[in-house]
C-alpha cells in the first residue's frame, strides 16, 4: 500500500509537486499527466531517491524518508530511462541486484523472474545485445526480484513497439493482482486499459482521481448524444433543436450531436420526436467521452486557473 500525504517538492522557487495526497492499494493505479506534471518527481520521492520538501509518504507502512532503507526493501522501482549495466548478462544483472537486496537462492530466483517476464532464453545474453522491449523486461524483472509489495513503474511503455506495449500492459495488469502497482503514463488509453484507479496530475497537483469508468461516467451523465435518422441532416437538425431540454446541436460527420441543457436524459424525447414524424431512427447513443477528453478538460481548467493566479499576482 502507498499512502501519500500533502507531499511537496520545491526546487528553489519552482514547485514540482504541490501537496498531493492519495492512497493506492492492491491493483494498478495509473499516474496520469502531461510531461513535466510531477509524475517522476513524485515517484522518486516514493522510492526514497529524493527527499520531499514537505509532507510525507509511507510505502508498505514505512515512512519513505525517515525509514528509507526499510521502505526501499518493499519497493521495486523501474526508472523511466531503464538504466542497466550494458556489459552484464541479464541473469548477472539480476543476481547483482538480488545480492545487494540480500535475496537468498539468487540464481534460482533470477531464473524464475526471468521466466516470468518471458526472457528465460536470453538469460546469458549481454544486456547490450537485447532489444529495447527486452531491456524493459530485464528492468521490470530487477524491480520484481525481491517480490516487493509495491511496484513503481515510470512510463514503462515509452519507446516500445505496439506489440511490446501490449505485452507489457498485460504483464502489468497481471502484476496488479499480487502487488500494489503505481504506473505512470501520459497515454490516456493506456491508463484506461491497464489501471483500476487513475490519478490525474497536472502542474504538480491532483486534478482528478477515481476509477476510469467513474471518471468517464461523471462527464457522460447528462452528456451529449448522437442522433442519426434516415433523413437528410438538414431536415433532422431543426427538429432536434426544437426538442425541449436540448441546449445546442451540431452536425457531425454522420448525424447530429445534441447537447442537453438539463441533466435529464434527452434520448426518450428525441426518439419519440423522430418516430412521430414517421422517420426511422438509425442511431441514438451517448457520445463516448474518453479519458482523453476528460484529461484535456481538466488540464485546460488547471492551466486557466494557474494563469489566472499568475495574472492576479
Amino acid at each position: 500500500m502507498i499512502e501519500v500525504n500533502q507531499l511537496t517538492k520545491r526546487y528553489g522557487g519552482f514547485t514540482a509537486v504541490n501537496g498531493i495526497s492519495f492512497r493506492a492499494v492492491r491493483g494498478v493505479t495509473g499516474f496520469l499527466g502531461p510531461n513535466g506534471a510531477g509524475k517522476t518527481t513524485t515517484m522518486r520521492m516514493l522510492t526514497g531517491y529524493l527527499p520531499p520538501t514537505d509532507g510525507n509518504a509511507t510505502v508498505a507502512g514505512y515512512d519513505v524518508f525517515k525509514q528509507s532503507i526499510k521502505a526501499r526493501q518493499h519497493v521495486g522501482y523501474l526508472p523511466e530511462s531503464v538504466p542497466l549495466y550494458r556489459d552484464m548478462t541479464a541473469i548477472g544483472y539480476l543476481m547483482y541486484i538480488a545480492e545487494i537486496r540480500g535475496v537468498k537462492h539468487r540464481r534460482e530466483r533470477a531464473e524464475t523472474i526471468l521466466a516470468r517476464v518471458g526472457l528465460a532464453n536470453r538469460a546469458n545474453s549481454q544486456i547490450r545485445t537485447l532489444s529495447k522491449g527486452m531491456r524493459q523486461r530485464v528492468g521490470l524483472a530487477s524491480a520484481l526480484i525481491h517480490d516487493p509489495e509495491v511496484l513503481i513503474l515510470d512510463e514503462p511503455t515509452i519507446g516500445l513497439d505496439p506489440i511490446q506495449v501490449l505485452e507489457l500492459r498485460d504483464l502489468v495488469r497481471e502484476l496488479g493482482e499480487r502487488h500494489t502497482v503505481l504506473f505512470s503514463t501520459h497515454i490516456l488509453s493506456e491508463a484506461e486499459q491497464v489501471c483500476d484507479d487513475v490519478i490525474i496530475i497536472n502542474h504538480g497537483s491532483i486534478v482528478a482521481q477515481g476509477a476510469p469508468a467513474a471518471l468517464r461516467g461523471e462527464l457522460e451523465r447528462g452528456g451529449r448524444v448522437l442522433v442519426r435518422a434516415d433523413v437528410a441532416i438538414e431536415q433532422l437538425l431543426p427538429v432536434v433543436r426544437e426538442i425541449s431540454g436540448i441546449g445546442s446541436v451540431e452536425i457531425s460527420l454522420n448525424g447530429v450531436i445534441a447537447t442537453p441543457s438539463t441533466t435529464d436524459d434527452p434520448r426518450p424525447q428525441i426518439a419519440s420526436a423522430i418516430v412521430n414524424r414517421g422517420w426511422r431512427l438509425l442511431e441514438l447513443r451517448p457520445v463516448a467521452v474518453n479519458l482523453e477528453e476528460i484529461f484535456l478538460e481538466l488540464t485546460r481548467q488547471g492551466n486557466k486557473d494557474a494563469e489566472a493566479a499568475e495574472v492576479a499576482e
Partner: protein
Amino acid sequence: MTDMPLGTLPTEAQVEERAVEIGGAMPFIAVFKREFKQYFRSPIAYGVAFALFLFLGIYFNGFVSQVNGQMPADTTLIPSIITFLMFLFAPLLTMRLIAEETREGTLETLMTLPMSEWQFIVGKFLAVWAYYTVLLVISLIYVAIMSMIGTPDYGATIGAYFGAWLYGGAVLAIAMIFSALTEDQIVAAFLGAATILVLYLSNTAASALSAQSPVLANIVRELGLTAHYDATMAAGILRLEDVLYFVFVMIAALFITTRIVEIRRWRS
C-alpha cells in the same frame, strides 16, 4: 532474434514462484565483487598495469646495471616509484567508478535499493584498492630478483610496501572524489591528478616556504603526502602518525565522496 510474439508470456501459474527469502544483505560486498571483477575486463585497468610495469621494468633494469655490485640492493625503490606514478594512475583507475553510474543513470536504481551511500562508496573504494593491491603484489617480483642478486633489507622492504599500500589507498580515495563530482571521466581524471600532484609536491612547496615562515612550511609539509611516505616509510621507518595520516585521508575522502553523491542526488 526478435521479441516473443504476443501472448507467449507465461502466466503466474505457469511459472512457479517460491516465496522469496531475504536476509543478511551485505550491499558493499556485492558492489565490491562487481567492481573488482570489472577491473579485469577494463582496457584502462590493463593499460595502467601495462604502463606501470613497462616503466618499472625499464627503471629497474637501468638501476640494476648501474649499481650492481657497488650499492646495496634497495628494495624500497619500486614502491617509491609506484607511489610517485600514482598521481597519474590513481585517477585513471577511479575516474569511471561513480561518473559512469551517474551518466548511465544506474545510480538512480542503486540509490533506490536498500543500500546506503556509504556502503556503495566503500564497496567501490575497496574494489579499486584491491586492484591496486594486486599490482603491488605483482611488483614483488622485483624484490624477488633483488634478493637473488643481493641481500636486501627485508625490514625496509616490508615497511616500504606497507606504506605504498596505504599511500595508494589514500590517493585512490582522493581521486574518487572527482568521479563523484562530475559525470565527465576525463575531467574527473584531470582534477584528480592535479590534486594528488599538489599534495605530492607539498614538500617542495614547504622547502620554498621555510625561509619566510617555518611554521607554515611545516603545516604544508605535514598536510602533503611525501612527508608521510618518502621520508619515513620508504626508508622502512614505520611511524603511527604516518599510518594515521593515510587512514584519516582515506576516511575523509570517502566521507566527502559520500556527501557529494548524496547532495547531487537530492538536487537532481
